[in-house]
């Protein structure tokens, strides 16, 4: 079972001008003291077409994390417009918040983001060079994906899984067959990391 549960993410300063920093107030709960820090990242998807345009806006370590409920505000600068294809500057994209523990991603929270002109006139006739848009994060509809990871994360085990043929693991059916899920102990939880 995951040791860290995200209880809530509040999107602060939303909607806001495109250049404003992102602010997420993250509340999470931890079952037991974590010996290592959590690493949080904000990833801005520059273009739906390719991951190439993903920008890691920032990454922070969060710790120490004793058992209990905690909150913090994760603030990250707005994406570099220079790295966003002009065709994607206006419209819908995605911002992702990910959290990793011992290098393994265990939760991914995604929000749709709409970048739009506030001025109705500009909206009708967008300028050729995109500019002065407003960013609106669809805060009411987070998409949360959780991943099973090895929380104990002992190095030996990770090394073991390194030697496992990755293809056999990556081909697992997405949902469990009726009846029983495959026993988790046999399958390295973090095999994806080594692909």
């Amino acid at each position, binding site marked *: *079972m995951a040791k860290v549960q995200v*209880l*809530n993410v509040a999107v602060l300063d939303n909607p806001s001008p495109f250049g404003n920093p992102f602010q997420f107030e993250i509340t999470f709960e931890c*079952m037991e003291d974590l010996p290592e820090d959590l690493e949080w990242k904000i990833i801005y998807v520059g273009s739906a077409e390719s991951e190439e345009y993903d920008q890691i806006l920032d990454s922070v370590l969060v710790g120490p994390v004793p058992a209990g409920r905690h909150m913090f505000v994760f603030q990250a600068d707005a994406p570099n417009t220079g790295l966003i294809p002009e065709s994607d500057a206006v419209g819908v994209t995605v911002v992702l918040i990910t959290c990793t523990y011992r290098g393994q991603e265990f939760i991914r929270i995604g929000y749709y983001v709409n970048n739009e002109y506030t001025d109705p006139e500009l909206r009708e006739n967008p300028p050729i060079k995109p500019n002065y848009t407003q960013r609106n994060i669809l805060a009411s509809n*987070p998409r949360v994906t959780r991943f099973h990871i090895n929380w104990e994360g002992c190095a030996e085990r990770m090394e073991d899984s390194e030697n496992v043929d990755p293809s056999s693991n990556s081909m697992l059916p997405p949902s469990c067959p*009726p009846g029983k899920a495959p026993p988790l102990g046999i399958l390295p939880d973090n095999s994806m990391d080594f692909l």
Partner: protein
Amino acid sequence: MKLLKPSWVSHNGKPIFSVDIHPDGTKFATGGQGEDSGKVMIWNMAPVLREEDEKNENVPKMLCQMDNHLACVNCVRWSNNGLYLASGGDDKLVMVWKRAAFIGPSTVFGSSSKLANVEQWRCVTILRNHTGDVMDVAWSPHDVWLASCSVDNTIVIWNARKFPEMVTCLRGHTGLVKGLTWDPVGKYIASQADDHSLKVWRTVDWQMEANITKPFSECGGTTHVLRLSWSPDGQYLVSAHAMNNSGPTAQIVERDGWKTNMDFVGHRKAVTVVKFNPKIFKKKQKNGSSPKPSCPYCCCAVGSKDRSLSVWLTSLKRPLVVIHDLFDKSIMDISWTLTGLGMLVCSMDGTVAYLDFSLDELGDPLSEDEKNTIHQNIYGKSLAITSTEAQLSTTIIENPEMLKYQQERQNSAQANAGPGGAGPESSAPKLNSVMNGESLEDIRKNLLKKQVETRTADGRRRITPLCIAQLDTGDFSPALFNSVPILPSGSSMSSQLTNQLSSDSSPGQLRPSHDAMLTSPPANSAAKGLEDNNDGVKSSLLLTSASKIEPMKALDSRFTERSKATPGVTAAISSTAGLTPLDSRPKDALSALKDAKTKEETSSDSEDKMAAINKNLAFGKRKPELLLDGGEVVEKRKKGRPRKDKVAASIPQPFPQVTPPAEREASRVSAPPAPIAVLKLPTPSTKKAFSLQVSMEPSVFLEVENEVSVVAGSKLSQLRCSRDGRDWNTLLPSSVVTAAGSSDVLAVACEDRMLSVFSSCGRRLLPSIQLSTPVSALHCSAHFVMVLTAGATLSVWDVHKQKALVKNESLLTILSGADTSVSQSLLTQQGVPVIGLSNGKSYCFSSSLETWTLIADKGDSLVQCADFRSCLPTHDAPVSSGPLAVMQGRNLNAGRLASRLSSTPHHLQQSMTLAFLENQLASALTLQSAQEYRYWLLIYARFLVNEGSEYRLRELCKELLGPVHKSAATSWEPTTLGLRKRELLREVLPVIGENLRFQRLFTEYQDQLELLRNK
């Protein structure tokens, strides 16, 4: 009989493996497969029972869902008191859930279903010990124990009063254990496994009572579960899948001799689950007919792989009812309501059926009193089945002293519990908020400013999260769910928005001219009341914004795939190794991680070493300064100096060569230096002047000024002491190197290796003592003086008695390691010298044993694994000032590591804790630290009581009591460390009395103590 299949009870079509109705009948739990995890759901019973509730939108159907299990949940069971829910799953875990009282409705963050959890159930304990899927869990009567069985062939009994403590692990099955049932009177637990056997275990000693194999020998194939059941009168045990003449049956096992003469026949495929109705029934009295005595009977439901369900009464030869084709797949679990009239059945096909019986069909249920009477008639009153408090009522208190004690204890417990505290639950941890009275809203407003942000060594941002509730409380403070985003207070937008919102507080006023994009999310975030008012408006706004944002398929995938931009391992590399190229193999990162770890682990040691090294360096460096300070005598000393410096660089040289020529004569007179003089401890350097406070109460200050005057070519040093404002001073013929004092004595060591001892008033108590080598450390405590010389020898004198306690004892024995050095030394009030070494070990020299004894070892695994938290006294503050505590330091954290090692077998941890506590006792004894001895003795006694080690307890009591009758031959000392042993026994006895199991022991020694007191 009425039959209903509530279609809304579903795990989205995934199989439901288990169902259990809450004892109060208002809700039920289901367990099974979730989307990508195991799932436990709690449902409202009302919509099942009443159609109008089912149709009423305001009556919630689902109360709570928990996705915490990593894999399929095989079993859910409510505790008998209804406070807890236990679930076991394929993730090898058993989780125990408790309702969190303070938290209102919430959704699971980001869950696709927007259905709110009406009740909050929180996992309070995770029980880890099984190495395979957990198939069944069962609470014992009175919730004393929780049993779980697994495909690892074992059954684990957990202490339900003290999770996650393990009572025992029952081994004996050679196949997957798939079902458990407790005897209703708590004397036995039965298990059924794939190894073609049903085993009955005694709860007294956890040994096997019976092994029944015959009815199962023919069993082939596998059934997913084998949920057997014990009849409510305790007389019959009915197994799941058994075979009789190659037909599937449910075997009836009689309690009397474990005979297997009867079975339930008729199912076409293996029986998966048997469940007795919790009620005992008697024949319904027909109106008008004369009440004639009839034999009470039981009712039993049997579910099978053949998808049919049969219900039997033990008074009938044929089943009461058989229902075929109720499900599309095998029946997995059955649960009766406590009233005995309702039953829920769940199936692998993911559906649940509810059966409602009438009294006419089943008969008149006996009341609980009548049922108890039956139990008492059959099993007697005093079933000494357990030692826990729940069974207090059934264990007979055998003497008035014990009764008095127990009553006092209950009274004080009630007093402690205060208003609202109810019985054993009163000990439940209380809410422990860390918010210091500040409201959560206030905190949130300033969180960004307030939160602590630092940079790590490699320049990364690190945020210390704000802890808003501690977990060990079990419950949480009322906190934010569906929380309102707080806009930065300074931003113009927020004020603008709040204005808007406050002016728009009535529906319909939200002007349509507002840009939807601008207003919809804040409207969403408005206060609750407002939200309700604006419901219509809001939803339309949401619609517009949603329709504007047309999610693209390409983007959708990004939500669920771990992106390449953040591969975990590269992150690990960049964070830990910094310089490692990104394309390097993960192994490198791992080894880097490992390195970092080992470094971390040894850091404390190396710090010590560093300190020692620094000391050495300082020693070497300071010498030249001294040369300058020395004034006229410099000339004279110069000859000796260079050689001394060499020694400081640890070139082994006998000490006489080192000593300045002027002192040679003296050294010749003194005892020849010990041959082990190669051992070199750092010595303090001579300073021109120094002062120190030797005692706080009374306050004693010592001032030393070296070379105040020169008389006849030899310099004099002054020692000045002020005690409570009164001064005295004295002169010494050589420079004072170090001084120490206690409230009784003062000691100074001079450069000429002379040790002088004065009383607190300045009277010389002893003639100067000539030391073989310079002083490394000097301590005074009470009327004891301890000297550690540079030649690594230790001496302790009792100044009052003018006697040596320790005579030139070499440290060679304990400094055996290559790199060990003395990091700490102290002298206890009782004159016991203690030496702490850089390797984390601490020794004291026991003058009675004339040997070095190990009293503390920071690296000792016993220290780290011992878990005696439960035995810590609640009211006494831990002893932190005694020598033992000082030497063991902060490391002694009552099994901080123990929780991490919860997977270690209980008996191992028990032994480790026992060994540790005995070490502590012995150490405290050697250190003659009476307070610590008493402290650890009580913890030790409590631990023995908790673990039920009667032999040790008895020996302890015997030792403390001593011989009752005086005899000359006895060597028993009435006191230990100045504590009267019988007084200690008086303190230990109440601890023993807490466990009724030891009441005889308690009584025995209580009586003898009384006897002795009256003598």
